[in-house]
């Protein structure tokens, strides 16, 4: 299963596509695309590209552990959590940086 992730244009913040078609900060709100939903996933990618507001758009493989979304790649786990050494809070979206498709 996959999620869609990218970085928002103004803040550069890590964001995820949620079930409402909004790009949000919370990984746990990310829409999960099952293998049979490839068409919907690709449509969401195309719609996102049209906004021109999400950079480094990627499809990321995840698993669910006790209903918690966990990216398979360590890179993505660090993107979701922020730098680890020393720990810094993630970048947040600015007031005018919310993107929907």
């Amino acid at each position, binding site marked *: 299963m996959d999620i869609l992730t990218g970085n928002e*244009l103004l803040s550069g*913040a*890590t964001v995820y596509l949620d079930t409402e078609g909004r790009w949000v900060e919370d990984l746990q709100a990310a829409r999960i695309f099952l293998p049979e939903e490839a068409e919907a996933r690709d449509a969401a990618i195309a719609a996102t590209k049209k906004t*021109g507001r999400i950079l480094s758009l990627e499809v990321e493989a995840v698993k669910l552990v006790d209903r918690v979304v966990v990216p398979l790649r*360590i890179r993505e786990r660090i993107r979701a959590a922020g730098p*680890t*050494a020393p720990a810094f809070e993630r970048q947040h979206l600015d007031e005018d940086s919310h993107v929907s498709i």
Partner: protein
Amino acid sequence: MYRYDEFDAAFVRERTAQFSDQVRRRISGELSEDQFRPLRLMNGLYLQLHAYMLRVAVPYGTLSSRQMRMLAHLARTYDRGYGHFTTRQNIQYNWPKLRDIPSILADLASVEMHAIQTSGNCIRNVTTDQFAGAAADEIIDPRPVGEILRQWSSLHPEFTFLPRKFKIALTGSPNDRAAIKFHDIGLMAALNGAGEIGWSVYVGGGLGRTPMIGKLINAYVPHEHLLSYLESIMRVYNRYGRRDNKYKARIKILVHEEGLETIKAQVEEEFAQVRGGRLTLPQEELDRIGAYFAPPPFKSLPVAAIDIAREKILDAAYGSWLENNLHPHRVPGYVSVTISLKPIGAAPGDATDAQMEAVADLAERYSFDELRVSHEQNLVLPHVLVSDLPAVYVALVEAGLAEGNAGLISDMIACPGLDYCALANARSIPIAQEISRRFAAPERQKEIGALKIKISGCINACGHHHVGHIGILGVEKKGTELYQITVGGDGTEAAAIGKILGPGFEAEAVPAAIERLVEAYIARRQTPDEPFISAYRRLGDAPFKEALYGTA
């Protein structure tokens, strides 16, 4: 220090205005990301894992207090109160927002700085010895030539779209502290038969996925022909460098594949055409630029001895700092002071805005307003009176910058790694932190002596792992971080590329593996003064391989 003339000021101002308009058009949607990306990269603006990253150039690693204060201001105003000094003597900010970039560039321009030449396939910011203009072993201050190279290479229309990025380093000392043999072009000051100073030119060095030691292409190029000769190399590279494969596009591959003699012949042919032309550097121009770097008004003093043994008895930490963080100055009564950005357990190269302000104050009060950034991610006060050392130390203690570990095992280079970098495969900083904590005790560090550990989070080798006496390369294997350890690298004039001795280690096992290497060295060194790298060269791989992996 060099001051911008009207041409410099105009081009930085124009570039800032251009990029401000490009940012505006990107935000309004007039420019797509595909159109904007190359423009932002030409202005040092990257997109990393968590946010944008702005890389600011510090030409040949030289800063004034005013400039350092501006770097602190940027960290405080537009970022999160810190910056990261890099292995290319630059500084990176990890959290800027796109809308703020025009203001940041305008602020930088107000102190004669910019972020040009910190990305893209151009000639990048020129680097040099961090003790330039101060070192006792220097035969020439390399900064005037560094500045001339900056002026020649900045926005050079012919070399803005090279096959790949291009890095030049130079040193005015025979003791290479700028890793010149690991640059696309390395310049080392040299004397000809008449005792005149010129430059030995090395070409085709580099790190990354294919590490190469630079090859001597010309043992002596006089100042007046240096630009013509370098332009000749650039033209050969620009014409024949491979553009079909990103991984084979650096000049090191061209030199390796074609052979030094072929490249040399091509360069000589080009040089014969351009020699004596518009790039000839008259002595008057060299003198004019050199005047900006005239020595400050040093006092005339006798040689000042420092009784380190006595100081150590009185204050062990101060004694260690004196023992490790001073570098001999060419003027009696003065020393250069390395300000370690490697406090135990900290992220190598990071400095807070308050620390940058404190260092700027020290430079202003005690070092003729001059500062340097080292490629080993430390800062330097180049000209400090020996009699001022106690006051400098006290101020550094207050700023949390008084670690007396320069050149020791905890003075590591580490790239930002997977904590920040979009290219990384594994984290570097936590590995450095754990090693630093393991070897924290000053007595233990002193027992080990000079030892350079360098850590990269991917094969691109920003952390210079290939030239670490002990190098650590992070890779990803089956979803976890794994670290390959190399031994025997050397970034100095005795250039060597470290060897991988066996399989990689998981992160938790790395500090213990380093400890085993250190123990193997201590057990086998001939005297306590034989450095790790000398012992390795004498002993070869076997004892170190055994230390890491046991007997087969």
